[in-house]
């Protein structure tokens, strides 16, 4: 098989991706072993791999994974429902949009994690605080991207709907919403990233709940290999959420 044929093969990008990842891990391992990276700051990848069984068996990481995943899912549902509804509202009412769009954009850029003490007072030291923090952090991007998607619907598609005498509801569900879906999903992905960061961050800060709390405890014990193993599970939550949104997008809109 020629080099050109290999690079064109369907499996090549995936293999290249995994290969690059493995190479990066290997390089880090080597740099630590030769002492260029301090092993008391960054543990060796091989140590992290060896820490997995211990973290799974002794630290109940699967249960913690499920707790964080459930919090992320709850926040995702809230962010999606209220974010899209908010974007639609701003699209429908120009005055509301003019009055609030700048504020919503400012909220999207603000370090919202800093309001967690307020949420602790309101909701207490429990999962509700964590979910609400995720929801608050993820809301603004979904609102803004929903608005952008709806406002960016090509005029001619709206006119096609008008020429077929569509009602307002039909115009929204048959044209505006499907036309805006790709942009809405960009917003959802951004929103879910913000939500997940805040969920794990608040778990860490208030030492409660799932993987964030575990990372906190392992870091406190200076169990670096265990800490990084736990972080791998956070990445797994992120992958699950992304796969879910990707499936949802493909189901709602099979092509771009």
């Amino acid at each position: 098989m020629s080099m050109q044929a290999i690079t064109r093969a369907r499996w090549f990008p995936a293999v290249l991706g995994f290969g690059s990842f493995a190479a990066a891990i290997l390089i880090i391992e080597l740099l630590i072993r030769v002492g260029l990276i301090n092993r008391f700051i960054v543990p060796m990848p091989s140590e992290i791999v060896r820490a997995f069984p211990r973290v799974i068996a002794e630290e109940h990481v699967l249960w913690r994974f499920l707790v964080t995943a459930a919090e992320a899912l709850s926040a995702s549902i809230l962010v999606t429902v209220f974010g899209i509804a908010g974007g639609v509202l701003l699209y429908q009412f120009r005055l509301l949009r003019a009055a609030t769009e700048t504020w919503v954009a400012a909220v999207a850029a603000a370090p919202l994690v800093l309001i967690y003490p307020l949420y602790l007072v309101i909701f207490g030291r429990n999962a509700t605080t964590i979910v609400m923090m995720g929801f608050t952090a993820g809301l603004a991007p979904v609102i803004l991207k929903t608005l952008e998607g709806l406002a960016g619907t090509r005029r001619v598609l709206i006119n096609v709907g008008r020429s077929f005498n569509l009602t307002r509801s039909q115009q929204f569900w048959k044209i505006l919403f499907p036309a805006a879906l790709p942009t809405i999903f960009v917003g959802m992905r951004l929103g879910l990233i913000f939500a997940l960061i805040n969920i794990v961050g608040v778990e860490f800060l208030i030492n409660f709940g799932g993987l964030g709390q575990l990372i906190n405890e392992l870091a406190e014990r200076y169990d670096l290999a265990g800490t990084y193993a736990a972080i791998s599970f956070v990445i797994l939550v992120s992958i699950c959420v992304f796969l879910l949104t990707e499936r949802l997008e493909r189901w709602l809109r099979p092509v771009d």
Partner: protein
Amino acid sequence: MAALIQPSERLAVASPAGSILVVDNITKRFETPEGVVTAVENLSLSVASGEFLGVIGPSGCGKSTLFNIIGGLLDGYEGSVKVAGELVRGPHPSIGMIFQEESTFPWRTVLDNVAFPLEIAGMGRSERYDKAGHFVSLVGLDGFERRYPAELSGGMRQRVSMARTLAAQPKIMLMDEPFAALDEQTRLLLGDKVLQIQQELKQTTLIITHNITEAVQLSDRILVMTYRPGRLKRVVDIDLPRPRTSEIVSSEAFGRYVAQIWNDLREEASRGLRADEAAKRQGAPT
């Protein structure tokens, strides 16, 4: 050749009794930062049932304004538009519109695009797909029913739009430069398809275009418009035999019609060009 150019007055007195579409003395003005712009002024036209009417004019003559007024997408004008004697006050089920821009729904397959108006009308799934399939066939897209617009060429996508409009079975098909984005050869070949469909369905059609060849190839009658404000300048009866194909473009008579219409248009197009340049010098939008 029969009387090539007829006086515009003829149109104004054209008997609305035999017409399915009557546009009566339309004037439309737009408020702009530079002042009031009259896009269309005292324009009247009528289209007989089964007729293919072409409206041609230079850029800026108000063609698209006229298209939007007849289609019911634009209001706030003087005069009236009637379809089969009924006053048009908004989008009318008897008028089907084909737009200049690409207007297929990218998230729907070809069949779902064409079935769209039937879905809106509440037709059952199997019945609407059967009917949509017929119109997909009519525009020559058999075998592409399950494809998405992104997988089709520009000409095929415009045919999907046409099939979608035809599926609603409008009394009048209104086309706004439907092939403007296509190359000349595809445009001529799609013209053949339009002629074939019009022949088969006896579809009353009004095409708005700035392309003389396209107008002569397709139309029974052509209205030539002036540059802004868009008024009626001339009516040209196209006395070319039907059924037609794109082969007709090489005929002597075709060439004479094109030359005659260009004579009328050249003056208007020059006026438009001068106005455009003057506006650009002053930094005003055109």
